[in-house]
């Protein structure tokens, strides 16, 4: 019975993530795309929970669904109405056909490789303890085996913060006349 329930939750979350991913690609308004990406992130967090990744699921909701998406929505609202045509409208062009073919090729390759090489191996997961994926276990691993990755990540975040400040501070509108040229005319 519990197994059946897990299957039901998995199928619902998987279809929600697929539908919202398609919506992100298809909506003509970037605001709606960002909102459906929030749905995609939330359903992926459900899948992370089914895989006993509790801490990663919480981080997904907080960092992605919270911080990153709020920043996205702010920027979209700041830029105003930037609606473009949906890629599916106006009949199939060569770009649409090529992109869908390329995406289908990636999908077919992955599925063929997994089906040929890893059939039985993938259906026998290792047993895990109760502390698998908890913040305590992940924190211990982060500060012992993966300390270098932890420090490098902090430097990456610092560089990104500095880059964001530089990009935001030095961008002046160029079509405004500067005071000197105004004084000359």
């Amino acid at each position, binding site marked *: 019975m519990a197994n059946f329930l*897990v*299957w039901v*939750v*998995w199928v619902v979350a998987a279809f929600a*993530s*697929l539908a919202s*991913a398609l919506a992100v*690609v298809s*909506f003509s308004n*970037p605001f709606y*795309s*960002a909102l459906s*990406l929030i749905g995609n992130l939330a359903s*992926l967090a459900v*899948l992370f929970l*089914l*895989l006993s*990744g509790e*801490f*990663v699921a919480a*981080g997904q909701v907080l*960092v*992605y669904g919270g911080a*990153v998406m709020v920043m*996205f929505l702010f*920027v979209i609202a*700041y*830029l105003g109405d*930037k609606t*473009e045509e949906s890629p599916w409208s106006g009949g199939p062009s060569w770009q649409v056909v090529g*992109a869908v073919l*390329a*995406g289908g090729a990636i*999908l077919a390759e*992955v599925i063929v490789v*997994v089906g040929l090489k*890893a059939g039985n191996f*993938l*259906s026998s*997961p*290792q047993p*895990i303890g109760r502390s*698998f994926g908890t913040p305590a*276990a*992940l924190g211990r*691993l*982060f500060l012992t085996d993966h300390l270098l*990755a932890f420090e490098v*990540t902090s430097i*990456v*975040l610092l560089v*990104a913060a500095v*880059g*964001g400040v530089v*990009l*935001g501070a030095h*961008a*002046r*509108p160029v*079509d405004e006349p500067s005071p000197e040229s105004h004084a000359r005319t």
Partner: protein
Amino acid sequence: MRGPDVQWYVVLSAILFSTGAIGVMLRRSPLIILLSVEIMLNSANLLLIAFSRLHGREDGQIFAISVMAVAASEVVVGLGLIVALGRRHVDLDVDKLRTLRG
């Protein structure tokens, strides 16, 4: 392990990744291209966590958290560029952005 086996997660992740890739190839607005890149990064995260569960080790989850941090940095820089473009009243269309000269 209750519920579906890891190969179902692999298939779902492949579908999500190709959806994001199609979005990157098709759309012209840099905002939606960034959103599609987020879909691709998240499908990779799903795969990392699924294999972490398969092997019964948490190293994959550590990797997924690092990917999240890198994705957040990428969004900061990408959105900074887009805001800088928007302030200069440049058309937000990646087909029309031919030079990087300010």
